[in-house]
C-alpha cells in the first residue's frame, strides 16, 4: 500500500478544516413554524418525523410487551383476563411490526441518508414521500381506533376462520394494516427510483454505500410482496364483515389459502425488517473498524439474494398444516438458502475486522451484539427449516424466541447502532458515551435473559399465545419476565440520554467518528440543500488506505 496524500480531503477531524462544529444554518431551523413541518418536502425532516412517530409506535408496542410479560409471571390469571391477554398479544404484534419494524429504518435512516449518500438534493418523489407519512398516520389512526373500540383478538397473523368468526372487531386493524402497507409500498417505490436516477456522477452501482444495496433489496420486497398482503387483508375484512365465504370451509372456502397468501407477504416481510438493519450494521462496522468491507460484491449481492429467495420460502410456515411432503421438502431446502446469504454477510463482516483499526464505542458495541444475535437467531431459523424439528417447535415459544432474536436482537440492535452512529449527523450533538455503553450492556444482558428462556420453554413444549400454562413452565417464564424488565430499562436509558443530548450535548462537528461514508461529506446538521457545493466521489466509501492510488485498484 503506497501512501499518497488523499486527493479529496474528507471533512473529518483528521482533515481539520474550517467546518463549524455546529452548523447553525441547518434543515431543522432554516424554515420555521408548524406549516413548514406539516407540509415539508425535505427528506431529512420527513426522516425526523418518522423517527418521532416510529419511536412512539415502539413505546406503545413495548408497553404491550411488558403487560404480556407481567401476565405470564404466574401460571394462572395475574393482571388480566384471557380476552384482554389475547388482545394484548395481537396488538403487540401489529404495533411492533406495522408501526415500528417495517417503517423504522427505511423511514428514518433511508429517507435521511439515501440522498446524502448518493449526493442528491432529495429523493425522486418528495411529495410521495410526504404522502407516505400521512398514510402512516392514517393507518396508525385507523388501527388505534380499532384498539380503543374493542381491539382484535386474532393474533397478528389473522388466521381464518378464527379472524372471520371472532366476536371482536377486526376490520379496523385489517384496514389500518392495509393503509400502512400502502405507505410501505410508496416508500419502497420512491427509494428504487431514487437510487436508479439520482446518483451523483462518480457513484457507480459498485461504489454505492452498502446501506443502499440493502435498502434497494428491501424496497424490491416492499413493492412486490406488500400488494399481496393488501389483497389478503382486504379479503379477510370483506369476509369478516359480509361473509362472502372465500376462506370459510362451510361455504367451500379454503382457510389454508389464506395462510399461503398471508405468508407470501409476511415471510418476505421478515426481510423487509432485517435487511435495512444489516445494511446499517455494514456502515457502522466499516466506520468503526476503519476498513473497507471485505467482499463488497458478496455483501451487496447477498442482500439481493435474500430478497429473491425470500419470496420462495413461505411454505415453511405451513409444515404442520397438512402440507404434502413434496412441498415441505421444497420449501425446506429453499429456506436453507436464505441462511446461506445471511452466513455470507456474517463471515464478511467478521473478516472486515481483520487488520482494522477498531474503536469499541457504543455503535460498535451494538454491531458486536448484532452479529452474535444474528448467528444464533439465524441458525435456529435454519434448524426450524429441517422440517422434522419444526413439527415439535411449530407454534411454540421456540418460534417466538427465534423471531425475537432476529427482530429484537437483529433489527432493533441494528436500529440502535444506526441511531447512535448517525445521531451526530441528524442532530449535530453528541450523546454521553459512558451512558451509551452502560445502556448497551443492559440491553445485551436483558435481551439474553428474556429470550434464551423462551427457547427452552419451546423445547419443553409450551405453545405460544398461552394465557395460562402448566406449572412446570413457571420458572422459565419468570426468568423471561425478569429479563424483559432489564431490557426495558436499557431502552429507557437510551431514550433518556439521547433526549438529554439534544439540550446538553456537545456540538458534534461534521464528522465526529472520522468516517469515510459518503453521508459525512456535509455539515452537521446538514443544511436544507444538503451540500453547500456538490462533493466529488473519487473513491469508494469507507476507503481508509489514505492512498489516492487505491482508486486504481477498483
Amino acid at each position: 500500500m503506497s501512501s499518497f496524500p488523499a486527493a479529496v480531503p474528507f471533512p473529518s477531524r483528521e482533515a481539520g478544516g474550517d467546518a463549524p462544529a455546529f452548523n447553525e444554518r441547518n434543515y431543522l431551523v432554516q424554515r420555521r413554524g408548524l406549516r413548514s413541518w406539516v407540509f415539508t418536502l425535505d427528506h431529512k425532516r420527513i426522516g425526523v418525523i418518522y423517527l418521532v412517530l416510529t419511536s412512539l409506535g415502539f413505546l406503545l408496542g413495548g408497553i404491550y410487551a411488558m403487560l404480556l410479560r407481567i401476565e405470564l409471571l404466574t401460571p394462572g390469571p395475574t393482571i388480566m383476563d384471557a380476552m384482554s391477554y389475547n388482545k394484548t398479544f395481537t396488538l403487540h404484534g401489529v404495533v411492533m411490526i406495522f408501526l415500528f419494524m417495517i417503517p423504522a429504518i427505511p423511514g428514518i435512516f433511508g429517507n435521511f441518508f439515501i440522498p446524502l449518500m448518493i449526493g442528491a438534493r432529495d429523493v425522486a418523489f418528495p411529495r410521495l414521500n410526504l404522502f407516505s407519512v400521512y398514510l402512516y398516520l392514517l393507518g396508525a389512526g385507523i388501527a388505534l381506533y380499532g384498539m380503543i373500540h374493542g381491539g382484535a383478538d386474532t393474533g397478528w397473523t389473522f388466521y381464518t376462520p378464527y379472524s372471520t368468526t371472532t366476536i371482536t372487531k377486526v376490520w379496523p386493524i385489517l384496514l389500518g394494516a392495509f393503509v400502512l402497507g400502502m405507505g410501505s409500498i410508496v416508500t419502497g417505490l420512491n427509494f428504487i427510483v431514487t437510487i436508479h436516477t439520482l446518483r451523483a456522477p462518480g457513484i457507480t452501482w459498485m461504489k454505492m454505500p452498502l446501506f443502499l444495496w440493502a435498502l434497494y433489496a428491501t424496497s424490491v420486497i416492499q413493492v412486490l410482496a406488500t400488494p399481496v398482503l393488501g389483497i389478503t387483508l382486504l379479503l379477510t375484512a370483506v369476509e369478516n364483515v359480509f361473509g362472502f365465504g372465500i376462506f370459510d370451509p362451510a361455504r367451500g372456502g379454503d382457510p389454508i389459502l389464506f395462510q399461503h397468501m398471508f405468508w407470501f407477504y409476511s415471510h418476505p416481510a421478515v426481510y423487509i425488517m432485517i435487511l435495512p438493519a444489516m445494511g446499517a450494521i455494514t456502515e457502522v462496522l466499516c466506520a468503526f473498524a476503519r476498513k473497507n468491507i471485505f467482499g463488497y460484491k458478496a455483501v451487496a449481492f447477498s442482500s439481493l439474494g435474500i430478497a429473491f429467495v425470500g419470496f420462495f420460502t413461505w411454505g415453511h410456515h405451513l409444515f404442520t398444516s397438512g402440507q404434502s411432503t413434496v412441498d415441505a421438502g421444497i420449501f425446506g431446502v429453499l429456506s436453507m438458502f436464505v441462511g446461506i446469504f445471511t452466513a455470507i454477510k456474517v463471515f464478511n463482516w467478521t473478516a472486515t475486522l481483520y487488520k482494522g483499526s477498531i474503536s469499541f464505542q457504543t455503535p460498535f458495541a451494538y454491531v458486536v451484539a448484532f452479529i452474535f444475535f444474528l448467528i444464533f437467531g439465524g441458525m435456529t431459523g435454519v434448524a426450524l427449516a429441517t422440517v422434522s424439528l419444526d413439527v415439535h417447535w411449530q407454534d411454540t415459544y421456540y418460534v417466538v424466541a427465534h423471531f425475537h432474536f432476529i427482530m429484537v436482537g437483529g433489527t432493533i440492535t441494528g436500529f440502535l447502532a444506526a441511531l447512535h452512529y448517525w445521531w451526530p449527523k441528524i442532530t449535530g450533538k453528541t450523546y454521553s458515551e459512558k451512558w451509551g455503553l452502560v445502556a448497551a450492556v443492559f440491553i445485551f444482558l436483558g435481551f439474553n435473559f428474556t429470550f434464551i428462556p423462551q427457547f427452552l420453554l419451546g423445547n419443553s413444549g409450551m405453545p405460544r399465545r398461552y394465557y395460562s400454562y402448566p406449572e412446570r413452565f413457571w420458572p422459565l417464564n419468570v426468568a423471561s419476565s425478569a429479563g424483559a424488565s432489564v431490557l426495558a430499562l436499557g431502552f429507557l436509558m437510551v431514550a433518556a440520554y439521547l433526549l438529554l443530548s439534544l439540550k446538553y450535548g456537545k456540538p458534534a462537528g461534521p464528522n465526529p467518528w472520522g468516517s469515510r461514508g459518503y453521508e459525512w461529506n456535509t455539515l452537521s446538521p446538514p443544511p436544507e440543500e444538503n451540500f453547500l457545493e456538490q462533493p466529488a466521489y473519487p473513491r469508494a466509501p469507507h476507503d481508509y488506505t489514505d492512498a489516492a492510488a487505491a482508486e486504481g485498484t477498483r
Partner: protein
Amino acid sequence: MSAPSEHVAHHFPDLPTQAHAARLGMWLFLATEILLFAGLFTAYALYRMLYPSAFHGASQLIETSMGALNTAVLITSSLTVALAYHFSRQSRGKLAAALLGITLLLGLVFLMVKYVEYSHHFHEGHLPGRFYRYPGLTVPGASMFWTMYFLMTGLHGIHVVAGMGVLAWLAVGSWRGSYGGAYTSPIEVGGMYWHLVDLVWIFLFPLLYLI
C-alpha cells in the same frame, strides 16, 4: 443536457432524467397492481380446480356478449389514450384533451354495462357466499364463483373509477396547455395506468365469461 425548464423539479438534473424517474415509478406501481390482482387470480385458480363443474355452470349464467362489448370498449379506450399521448407530444393539447374526454366516456360506457350486468345478477340471486340464492344451480362451490366474480370485477371497477379520475385531471390540464413538447410524462404515466386497467380486464374476460 436540455435547457433548464420550469417543469424540472429542483432535485433533478434535467427533464429526461425526471421523465425517466416518472416512468420507472409508474412501472413499479403497475407491478404492485398486478400483484394485488395476483392474489385474486390465485384464489380463482384454486377454486376453479376444486369446483370445476360449479364454475363452468355458473359462468354459463353470464351474458358473454356484454363482456365482449366491454372488452371492445376498453380496447378502444386504450387506443384513444395512446393517441392522446401522441398528440400531446406534438403539443396539440386541445386535441389530446378531446381524446382523453372520449376515453373518459368509454370508461363510463364500461361502467354502465357493468351496472346492467350487476343488477341482473342481483335480481337473479347470483350473489356471493351467504347471499347466494339462485335455485337453478345448487352444486357445491356455485356461490364461490360469484364470490370470485364480484371481488375481481369489483376491484377492477374501482380501478376503472380511479383511472377515470386521473384521466379527467389530465384532460383539464391538457386543455389548459400544461403539457406538451418535451414535458408529457403526466399523460404518459396516466396512460400507462389506463392500459393496465385494460390489461387486467383482458385477463378477467376469458376467465369469468368464456371458460
